[in-house]
């Protein structure tokens, strides 16, 4: 690195051994949130970005390649931070990467520091810290167009002189303007370095910033009139709350209702493929494996894509426009009751559609503690996959014509389940954020309220693409794997025709065969084996098998029970369920689906993490198996205890 009293342009003494041996230059992007850092990263690297994780932490690592005149530049997009004095794991990554003495990370050969030209008075504080790392630095000024539009002023050339490092102004993510920056990126060892480093004490830094900005002719932009006018409505105690409620309603509607037909198409398509397999593959077990195991698994993965894509379209639009910060501002007081901050609201709301997009939405939370706490609460929100289960069980539990005053009792029970789910989610988040408080420092809450901006479609598209790709790459394996394992458990060992006939089952009667197969499967053995565990809840092994099968997706519970019931009474499966009796054990012969058992099942499904897709996405978003294991464990314990309690309470009243 070039040190010592060199002026600009004189820093030609590259230190030996770093650039010569590598085939590419390694640079990193540093900047505060909202500084246009990721937009610049996307503009420079395009779709050639790679996502990974930093060793040992749950922080995503983004890097991409930029080719300049045949030379490769590896560009790393560091997490956004307002300071190098880290107070969170994300920020610690930035400090570690920038610290040449840190052995766990590779310090880049040069840093591109994005500074929002409209907030220079603040952002130069971080630049002062960055310059002290002695890593060659180049400043990328963003939002200069907005600075001029808001009647601010800045002499970029004078700023370059005052800072002593290269300064390049870019506007938005326009690729054609990046030529100057791209040319600079190849040789960071030739960048000018400050002749004297900025001071380190707060007052000294203030003086340095004042002086630098004065000599660069910096005039603070006037407050954005457009933003002020919009905020007067959107943050108004009454109008703001109404707009917020409408926005969230629309948001939920899009994820819930708009995604539904798209998911329907995907399901129909895979059902069609399954039928084709059934029609053309004559070996029954193979047909079943292909259609139920493989196609079911792939379909089970793809069915989430519409929701994830729509969610990220909405989230990145809200972020890009600047409404996310406003929504969080409005909801912060409410969420503070659960120990969270406002931004967690969007994640919990999305979980009403499905916990998977909900957990992915926690990426918007800057504090890892809040992120984990929200992830632990999100699976408790009543997702759409619970609906068929609830509908079936409520139908058995509550008479269709029963009423609580003017409203149908079935609807009241459904509403109560939603409400209890939401309250439990908040309670769980509160608990985990309390636990997290003991392990790390309490992060101060602060949230920049950026001016309203027109989001770049490119950034929205990339965010959606990135989310879908990440889901498919990391979660697909887990969902597909679980589906196949479950299929094997429920279908093996496969009986021979002779064996079927010996037990009085006609091999051509597919329904009867599938019931027989499930009854004699390894899964049934598991269901019987765990019977003592679920006995206090009143579940027999058939419910256990259905619960086990529903691990691939909750609605499978309905299908599996339906299959069993259809075998007993093909014309009226619902009646069959009602008439089903306990198969064995001390209660053999008694009706199985009594009110206490049904209530216990409902409560069990309310709490249990009966969804391997959620486990998979928890694994991906938290970066390790620790949190999905904790979530599965604690939710199982809660589900079991609450179900047992419910059975006792309901049993006492019925």
């Amino acid at each position: 690195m070039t040190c010592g009293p060199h002026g600009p342009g004189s820093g030609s003494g590259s230190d030996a051994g770093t650039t010569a041996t590598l085939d590419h230059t390694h640079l990193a992007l540093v900047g505060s949130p909202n500084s246009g850092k990721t937009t610049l990263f996307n503009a420079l690297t395009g779709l050639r970005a790679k996502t990974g994780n930093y060793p040992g932490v749950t922080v995503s690592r983004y890097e991409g390649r930029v080719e300049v005149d045949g030379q490769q530049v590896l560009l790393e997009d560091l997490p956004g931070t307002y300071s190098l004095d880290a107070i969170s794991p994300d920020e610690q990554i930035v400090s570690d990467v920038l610290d040449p003495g840190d052995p766990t990370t590779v310090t880049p050969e040069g840093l591109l520091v994005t500074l929002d030209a409209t907030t220079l008075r603040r952002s130069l504080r971080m630049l002062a810290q960055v310059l002290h790392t002695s890593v060659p630095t180049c400043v990328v000024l963003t939002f200069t167009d907005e600075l001029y539009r808001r009647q601010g002023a800045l002499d970029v050339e004078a700023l370059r002189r005052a800072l002593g490092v290269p300064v390049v102004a870019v506007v938005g993510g326009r690729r054609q303007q990046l030529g100057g920056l791209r040319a600079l990126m190849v040789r960071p060892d030739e960048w000018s370095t400050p002749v004297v480093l900025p001071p380190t004490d707060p007052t000294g830094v203030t003086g340095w910033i004042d002086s630098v900005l004065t000599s660069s002719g910096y005039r603070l932009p006037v407050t954005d009139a457009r933003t002020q006018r919009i905020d007067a409505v959107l943050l108004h105690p009454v109008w703001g709350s109404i707009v917020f409620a409408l926005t969230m309603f629309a948001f939920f509607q899009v994820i819930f209702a708009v995604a539904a037909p798209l998911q329907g198409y995907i399901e129909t398509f895979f059902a069609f493929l399954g039928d084709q397999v059934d029609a053309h593959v004559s070996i029954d077990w193979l047909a079943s494996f292909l259609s139920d195991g493989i196609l079911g698994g792939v379909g089970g993965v793809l069915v989430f894509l519409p929701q994830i894509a729509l969610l990220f379209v909405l989230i990145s639009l809200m972020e890009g426009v600047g409404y996310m910060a406003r929504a969080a501002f409005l909801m912060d007081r409410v969420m503070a009751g659960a120990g969270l901050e406002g931004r967690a609201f969007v994640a919990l709301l999305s979980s009403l559609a499905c916990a998977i997009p909900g957990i992915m939405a926690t990426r918007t939370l800057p504090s890892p503690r809040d992120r984990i706490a929200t992830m632990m609460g999100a699976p408790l929100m009543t997702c759409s996959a619970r609906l068929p289960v609830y509908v079936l069980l409520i139908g058995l539990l509550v008479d269709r014509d029963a009423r609580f005053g003017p409203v149908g009792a079935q609807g009241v029970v459904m509403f109560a389940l939603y409400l209890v789910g939401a309250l439990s989610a908040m309670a769980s988040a509160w608990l985990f954020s309390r636990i997290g408080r003991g392990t790390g420092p309490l992060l101060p809450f602060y949230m920049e309220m950026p001016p309203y901006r027109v989001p770049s479609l490119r950034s929205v598209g990339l965010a959606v693409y990135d989310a879908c790709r990440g889901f498919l790459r990391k979660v697909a394996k887990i969902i597909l794997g679980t589906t196949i394992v479950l299929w094997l458990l429920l279908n093996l060992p496969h009986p021979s025709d002779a064996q079927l006939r010996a037990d009085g089952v006609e091999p051509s009667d597919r329904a009867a065969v599938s019931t027989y197969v499930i009854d004699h499967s390894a899964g049934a053995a598991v269901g019987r084996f765990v019977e003592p565990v679920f006995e206090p809840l009143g579940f027999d092994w058939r419910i256990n098998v259905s619960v086990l099968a529903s691990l691939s997706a909750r609605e499978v519970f309905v299908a599996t029970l339906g299959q069993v019931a259809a075998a007993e009474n093909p014309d009226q499966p619902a009646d069959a369920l009602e008439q089903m009796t306990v198969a064995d054990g001390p209660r053999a012969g008694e009706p199985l689906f009594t009110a206490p058992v049904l209530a216990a099942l409902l409560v069990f499904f309310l709490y249990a993490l009966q969804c391997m897709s959620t486990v998979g996405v928890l694994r991906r978003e938290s970066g390790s198996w620790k949190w999905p294991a904790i979530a599965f464990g604690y939710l199982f314990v809660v589900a079991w205890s609450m179900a047992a309690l419910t059975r006792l309470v309901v049993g006492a009243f019925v």
Partner: protein
Amino acid sequence: MSVAIHPEPVAGDPTAVRWVMPAGTLPFVGAPAALPPELQTLVDDGTVTRVEVEPDAVRVAIAAGRSWRVVGGRVRSALVAALGDASAWRGPGGADRDDVLRMAVEQVIAGDVGDYVRGHGGRISLLDVRGGRVEVALGGACAHCPSSDLTLTQRFEVAVRARCPDVTEVVTRDEPGASGETGRRRLLPLRPVRRSAAG
């Protein structure tokens, strides 16, 4: 409040740094006859070899073997303390405030604005500075260009004022001996420009 300063390198002289300070902090230019004690200490211990005052900066040179990265912090602290009390400085004998303005004009001509004029095929030179009033001569392509009145002179005056708030008036003349009329063009009082030179 302490005086806000920042360092800028001096092209071609690695021992020197211009510590840019608010214009008008010190009432003189050139080598001071006496330094405030904070700076004198650094001269006495052999760190600093030369101190020169410019309209909006103090140019400090250090001994050849020293590194600015090492001594920069000490020089900064000493300067901030020294600039906090302008009365502790003694300017060179016989200097007056027009010297500050004259040097400011010379720096502007040598700097960005001069570059701009030369880049457009023009010439600009200082004729006279008296009592806050500056007279410059325009030549070459700029001599009769109508935009030299507004754009150029405004830029010029902004740049001079940024270095020396004492300027009261800028007057441009065509270069003596240039063909055509030799008129004196008086400029309107300066209005603030909306954008800086680099905009």
